[in-house]
C-alpha cells in the first residue's frame, strides 16, 4: 500500500486570506518536493484560495526544485488575479532568494502580520 502523503502545510483562513505555515524544515528530497508542489497547487486548484500567505518560519532548507514550486504557485495565483505574500524567511534562505532573483518577483515580509495587512488591502 502506498504511504499516505505527509501533510506539509497547515492552513488557517483569516479574513479570506489563507495563512499557510510550512511545517517541513528541510524541503530537499525528491518525494518531499513533489508533495510540497502538489499541496501548494492544491491551495488554488482544490481549495480555491486566491490570497495566500506562506509562512516560512519552520523552513531551514529549500532546494532549487522546491523554489521552482513557488514559481508555479505564483503563476497559478496570477492566473486567478489573486495575491501571494511570503513571510518569516530564515536569513540563509532569504540569501538564496536574493541570488536567484526571487526577492524581485515575490512580496516578502519579515513578519506574518505585515504580510497579512498587505493581503487584506
Amino acid at each position, binding site marked *: 500500500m502506498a504511504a499516505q502523503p505527509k501533510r506539509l502545510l497547515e492552513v488557517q483562513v483569516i479574513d479570506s486570506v489563507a495563512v499557510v505555515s510550512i511545517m517541513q524544515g*528541510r524541503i*530537499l*528530497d*525528491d518525494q518531499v518536493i513533489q508533495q510540497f508542489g502538489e499541496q501548494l497547487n492544491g491551495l488554488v486548484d482544490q481549495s480555491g484560495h486566491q490570497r495566500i500567505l506562506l509562512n516560512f518560519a519552520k523552513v*531551514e*532548507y529549500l*532546494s*532549487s*526544485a522546491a*523554489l*521552482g*514550486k513557488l*514559481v*508555479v504557485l*505564483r*503563476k497559478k495565483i496570477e492566473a486567478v488575479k489573486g495575491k501571494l505574500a511570503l513571510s518569516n524567511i530564515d536569513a540563509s534562505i532569504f*540569501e*538564496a532568494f536574493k*541570488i*536567484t*532573483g*526571487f526577492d*524581485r*518577483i515575490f512580496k516578502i515580509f519579515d513578519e506574518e502580520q505585515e504580510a497579512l495587512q498587505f493581503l487584506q488591502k
Partner: protein
Amino acid sequence: MSVRPQASALLSLPECFVIPSDACAAHRIREHIAGRLREGGYPERDVMDVLQALDEAMVNAIKHGNRCDGQKQLRISFCVDQDCFQICIEDEGEGFDPNAVADPCSADRLDIPCGRGLLMMRHYMSEVSYLEPGNAVMMVKKRCGCE
C-alpha cells in the same frame, strides 16, 4: 564560472565511490558524506550547506548528465580535511559549458520554475568549478571559521 582541465586533483581525493545513477544511491552517498563531515567535527550548518549543494549537483548529474539512464554511473570522490571539504562528482554525460547556461535571474527567466541549481551550489559552497569537458564538478566548502 571556471572550467579547469580534468587533472590529478580529481584523482587525489582519497575516498571514491562509483554509484548507480539513481536517487536511492544518491541518498545513500549523501548520508555517508554527512556522517563523515559530522565525524570530522564540522558544524551542522556546514553539513547542511554541503548536503544542499551535493543534492543539486547529483540531481544535475543524474538528470542532465546521465539523462536518467539507469545503466550509467556517477563517480564521487571526496576528502574531509581539517579546514575544508572537497568533493568531485563526475557523470558519464558529454559535459556542458557552465558559462553558456542562461542566467535564471534575467527578467525573462525569473518565471521559469527550473534552472537555479548552479546558483544554489555556488551559494552554499566556498568554490565551485567544472572540469573539462564539463561532466565533473569540483566543489570546496571551507569549514566555518576557516574562510
